[in-house]
């Protein structure tokens, strides 16, 4: 990855310092410790706040269910609005988790251990936030199950040519595999916590740790299963957002009908995913004090990912415009001209500023390693990626026949539903932070120099669990 860090697994002295601790017990304390303390009032306050927003979201979906899709700002040229924008955005957020857990795992990127649990959890919650939108954006929510291939007496079957149908499978597979992967990784850590726990907590943790004793046999099975799941997840990283992009790419609409969408969407998803993981991590490591485990090295690596994917996305933007011009197709040309200079120009330039310009700061090592800069830039990227999806979806407002062109303006319900999904995300996330190990204890230990067979153990400090 970096020229700064020589890669020699067998030479512990040359390995990057991923964990600023030489003590397994300290690592356990750092990570498992917060789950064992009493609920602190800040956490309760934050959970209450998040849960209220989640309740608001639920209420607004109820309102939508009761009144009709018209409570949103969608209209006739722009039949998809915030719901789909938010859906893609949340799905994109989830991508960092899978990439970190699967691809980086397969590539033996050991620094991933500091952030994988965290980002996997974010993946799951982000996919949940994403999933509510397609379910509720349909006009008749109560028969949304028509989209599943359920045998019925009418012989009516979903249309397998529709990208929305592909979406259903792409996202449900993604969610299932991500959840399994996450849970799989949690088992040794849950066992660690079980061993430290008492009473009801011990009972519950015992159930979920599936009788893990840390036996070599267990570890062997675990490593094998983890590898298999990583192999299953790896194509999903590429496929999910590719398939989501097919919603647009397979359509006829100028600005949507483009073959660059699948790679561009994947790059964008990883981009936004890393950005949000980074944002959250910076906050969490400050609050929960695991700076020793999540080090500047991790932040910097993630920033490099953002630089790479952000530049890829920028390339895609440029290529879209070039191809639109080069195709000579008047509709395509206008679609892109209109994106940049039409009624929604502000969204386009917000997107360019946030997604193309802001990651370029990461060329500078000082900025890459500066938490304030990183935090601000990741926020920019999150906003920019939301605008990217907005710009794409809103392309609908001016397609082929000028007479049908319209405008899109979200309603208060759109805004608050979107804000409400943050409530849902943070509610789950806060519960995760409190009740589950935020970092992969076993894996972190695995990348510590002490874990190397060649490491000479300081027996006095060997604490294990």
């Amino acid at each position, binding site marked *: 990855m970096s020229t700064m860090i020589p890669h020699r697994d067998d030479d512990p002295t040359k390995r990057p310092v991923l964990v600023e601790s030489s003590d397994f017990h300290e690592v356990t304390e750092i990570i498992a410790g917060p789950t064992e303390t009493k609920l602190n009032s800040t956490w309760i306050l934050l959970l209450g706040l998040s849960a209220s927003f989640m309740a608001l979201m639920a209420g607004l979906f109820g309102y939508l269910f*009761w009144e009709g899709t*018209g409570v949103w700002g969608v209209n006739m*040229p722009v039949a998809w609005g915030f719901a789909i924008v938010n859906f893609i955005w949340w799905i994109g957020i989830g991508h960092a988790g899978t990439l970190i857990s699967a691809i980086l795992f397969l590539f033996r990127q050991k620094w991933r251990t500091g952030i994988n649990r965290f980002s996997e959890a974010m993946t799951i919650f982000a996919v949940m936030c994403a999933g509510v939108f397609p379910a509720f954006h349909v006009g008749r929510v109560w028969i949304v199950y028509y*989209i599943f291939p359920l045998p019925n007496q009418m012989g009516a079957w979903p249309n397998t040519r529709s990208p929305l149908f592909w979406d259903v499978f792409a996202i449900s597979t993604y969610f299932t595999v991500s959840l399994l992967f996450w849970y799989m990784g949690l088992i040794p850590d849950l066992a660690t916590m079980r061993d430290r726990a008492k009473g009801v907590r011990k009972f519950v943790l015992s159930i979920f740790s599936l009788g893990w004793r840390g036996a070599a046999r267990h570890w062997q099975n675990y490593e094998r299963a983890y590898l298999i799941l990583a192999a299953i997840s790896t194509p999903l990283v590429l496929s999910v957002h590719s398939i989501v992009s097919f919603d647009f790419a397979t359509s*006829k*609409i100028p600005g949507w009908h483009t073959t660059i969408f699948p790679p561009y969407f994947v790059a964008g998803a990883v981009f936004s995913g890393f950005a949000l993981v980074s944002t959250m991590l910076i906050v969490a490591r400050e609050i929960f004090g695991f700076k020793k485990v999540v080090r500047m090295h991790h932040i910097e690596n993630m920033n490099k990912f953002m630089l790479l994917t952000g530049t890829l996305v920028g390339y895609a933007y440029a290529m879209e415009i070039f191809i639109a011009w080069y195709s000579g197709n008047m509709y395509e040309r206008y679609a892109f001209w209109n994106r940049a200079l039409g009624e929604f120009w502000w969204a386009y330039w917000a997107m360019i500023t946030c997604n193309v310009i802001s990651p370029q700061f990461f060329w500078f090592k000082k900025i890459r390693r500066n938490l304030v800069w990183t935090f601000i830039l990741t926020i920019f990227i999150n906003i920019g990626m939301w605008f990217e999806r907005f710009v794409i979806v809103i392309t609908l407002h001016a397609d*082929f*026949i000028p007479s049908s062109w319209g405008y899109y303006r979200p309603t208060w319900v759109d805004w608050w539903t979107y804000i409400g999904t943050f409530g849902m995300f943070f509610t789950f996330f806060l519960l995760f932070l409190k009740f589950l190990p935020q970092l992969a204890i076993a894996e972190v230990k695995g990348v510590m120099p002490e874990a190397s067979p060649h490491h000479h153990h300081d027996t006095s400090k060997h604490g294990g669990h």
Partner: protein
Amino acid sequence: MSPLNLDPKNAASKASWKSLEELSGSPEFKDFAEHEFPAGADTMGADISRRRFMQVMGAGLAFAGVTGLSGCKGIRRPEQHILPYNNMPESLVPGVPQFYATTHSLAGEAVGLIVESHEGRPTKVEGNPAHPASRGGTSKQHQATILDLYNPERLKTPSKGGSDTTWDAFWNDANPVFAKLRDNGGEGLRFLSGASASPSFRAVRDHAMAAFPKARWTTYEALPRDNAQNGLYALTGKAAEPLYHFEKAVRIAAFDCDFLESEPNSLAHSRDFAAGRNPDKGAESMNRLYVIEPAFSVTGGSADHRLRVKASAVPHALLALARELQSQGLSIPDLGVSLNSIPRNAEGISSAWMKALAEDLLSHRGKSVVTVGQYQPAGAHAVAQALNLALGNVGSTVEWKVSPVHALSATNPAGAPENGLAALRELAADLDAGRVTALVVLDANPAYASPADLAFGAKISKAAFSATLVSEANETSAVTTWQLPLSHFLETWGDAVALDGTTSLAQPLIAPLYDTLDASEVLAKLTGYAQTSAHDIVRAHWASRSGLGFDAQWRKWLHDGIVTLGGGADAAYVGTAPVGSLVRALPAAGQGLELMFRGDARLLDGRFANNAWLQELPDPVTKLTWDNALLVGPALGKTLGISDFLLNEEATGTTLADYRKRPMVRVTVNGASLEVAAWILPGMADDAALLHLGFGRVQVGTVGDEAGFNAFTLVSSKSPYLASGVKVEKLDRLYALACTQDHWSLMGRPIVRTGDLEEYLKDPQEYASEDKWNKHPPEKSLWDEKVRGTYDFSKGMQWGMVIDLNSCTGCNACMIACQAENNIPTVGKEQVLRGRDMHWLRLDRYFTGNVEDPQLEFQPMTCQQCENAPCEEVCPVGATVHSHDGLNDMVYNRCIGTRYCSNNCPFKVRRFNFFNYNNKHTETEQMRMNPDVTVRFRGVMEKCTYCVQRVQKARIEAKNAGSERIADGAITPACGQSCPSQSIVFGDINDPESRVAKLKAHPRNYGLLKELNLKPRTSYLARVRNPNPALALQA
């Protein structure tokens, strides 16, 4: 049923059981099993619903209590009850509609109609092909009358001062008043009505005037109908009106005359104009239309040459033409002015333009027409008809017909034309002076639709006795003592004479829904006419004019809708002296900004203000709904400081983000001022502004409430349609105007294909070709289309449509026809502002060329029924699929509302039910629904089906007749049927002999977005303009 009580012993003893209830041995089940038929089945009364029936029948298998969330009324499909006939009416097959001929009179203009009735409910109005004023076409107002019939806000009983009472109470109140009036000869009795073309009503009226000789009758229409009569009266000595035959005219000069839409007889004009618009006939036989007008009308949109001239200068343009014609050697009847003294270049009228027009008219003597619109003074009409006479057009392209309304007068057979406004002014003065003791207003609304300076409404209360007969409460009924409910024309009998003298009968399709009476009935009862029911009045009137065998004749008249008794009389030129005085009385062309007041294209003078279909129908030119606005041209807009709001970036047709909001302006004129939203309309004459009448009603139902601005408050009785000395100031407020089309530019896209006749004749094949307009790589499918589709579109009947852009005038009648036929809801201004209007068929309007003086293009746009339909590919649940006959069908039951189909539709013709637009209908409103078309629920997509219900009906009829093939022309979609110019042709594209197949083979035929390989079934015939080569440089 009680909760299940499963008894294991019981269960063990049963080898088989058919339900859990049986298994449980519940007492209900035992009871149930004892009766062979379910409870209630043997006692099923007339009031049992189908739903109840199904519940009872299903009881053996149903788990009670799991059938649904009974509280969720907002979400569930509405529960409704249907009732069968107890005694089957003869000749009525349930589900098979019946059609009856009738007649509708609108401001004295009669149009014959055929009305569709389902089980006694009229649901759809069509034109009567046998009636000369319809020829099968209808206007938007005719189509929308169905909605008025079922309007729950109609007056249901007579009421006095707002409290409901009975007709008996009214007669008890009125009879002593009329008895007293009879004694004094009717001194102080005044009647006021709108124009009528009904002979039988005229007979009742004449009788009334004879019985009350001192009474006065005021016929007042807010929109002018008497200028043409007064103009021709000066030439002929008779109240005649011109009857045009545009099919015979190859050169037409229309001076501020919207003969294709708002002028009388416009349906026939559209048909005739279209007939003469065939470019294949060549330059000499295809008509050429010159339009001189101050603001865009649809006629101006059809023009080959259009000259922007402010309204006050139009008569002078006409005189300039007369002078030009005279100088080119035409002998013009004496107009009382010296034509040589008329400046050639006055009022910005291009002399070259006039010269070319004069030459063209002169070289087509007897085959040309000069027309003037009703908003122009009588003198202008006199000049125009004199020119027609001089050009030899009278008798060929123009007939001077004695006006049916006035020819009816028994007391004044020659019929000096009435001057409605003068009569109203007189009535206002009488009221003011206390000379009126009793005022009866029959179906008119002078308190709203009259010049503000008359303050007519305020004066009505000075009459001791006053009554208004009207269908819905209005401004006039609010100030009269009595409010009497008027029958809808579909509830009563009547008759009417058309412009050419054809008489047609009106028969009811339904008994009055409420306790209502017709105007003739009320008048007859008040004045002691021999018959008092509308049926008897009409029948007795015609019986007295027919001879033996009247019964058979009457039945035939009712069946055909046409009375076969003599036509109208012609008037001849006698050259009376008033010509000169009329022409000399023409006001000088105004200086500075002038403001026109004209009837709205949809609401007319406001009488349709409570009709939601018409309120939501976009104005043909501005595309505004639910409002009127002060219309100004781009240059004037700039002067007024409102040009920021012009949809005017030439390159894009795009506008500012907040474009739905428009600036408010204060218009001050005639000593009154009005705050009104301003709208920039290209193609207006310089220094001219236009404000449509009919909006801003004060006493109106919920629909028309707060819709638009009341322009009548600015109207002065001295010059009601044109005001000068207008002051317009921009206010610091914005107002949301709901426009259905925000972008007016074609963006250089080959969507509407137009060109000149010369170009067309040079190479017809190339004229509308893809090569010329839309070069693209060959279309190629990724899949084998034959394998992909279940159906082979080369076999069997395959439906297609051709829309002729050359004859489409953009009148919008098809939109309402579609709305009525397909149960399309209206959504209200807020939803239109959100871009959620539901019209399946829309009329796209584009401006091309110079923004100040553009050309207008119309294009009806609806589902193109693509063979390779992009919507079908993306629907995840297969709710939109193809039929074997090539229709892109919507399966409402299957639709979950992802709206993906709409996104992928290149034409954006799909419409989504964002709310449950149909759940608030009263029972009366539900009656207007077409039972052949599903009423869509919230959350489903809908769109044009090519009127699949009509296709299926024809198919069933053909099959019943033992044929597999449906005859060409047996199916007409609602849009095509209403189209006055017959621009929409539908049929089987696989039948080479069908009209549609022949049109599809025509070189002007083209499909949209061919490069997408959509294979649309709807195609268009390119528009061909026929400009005068002499004016080519100017155009």
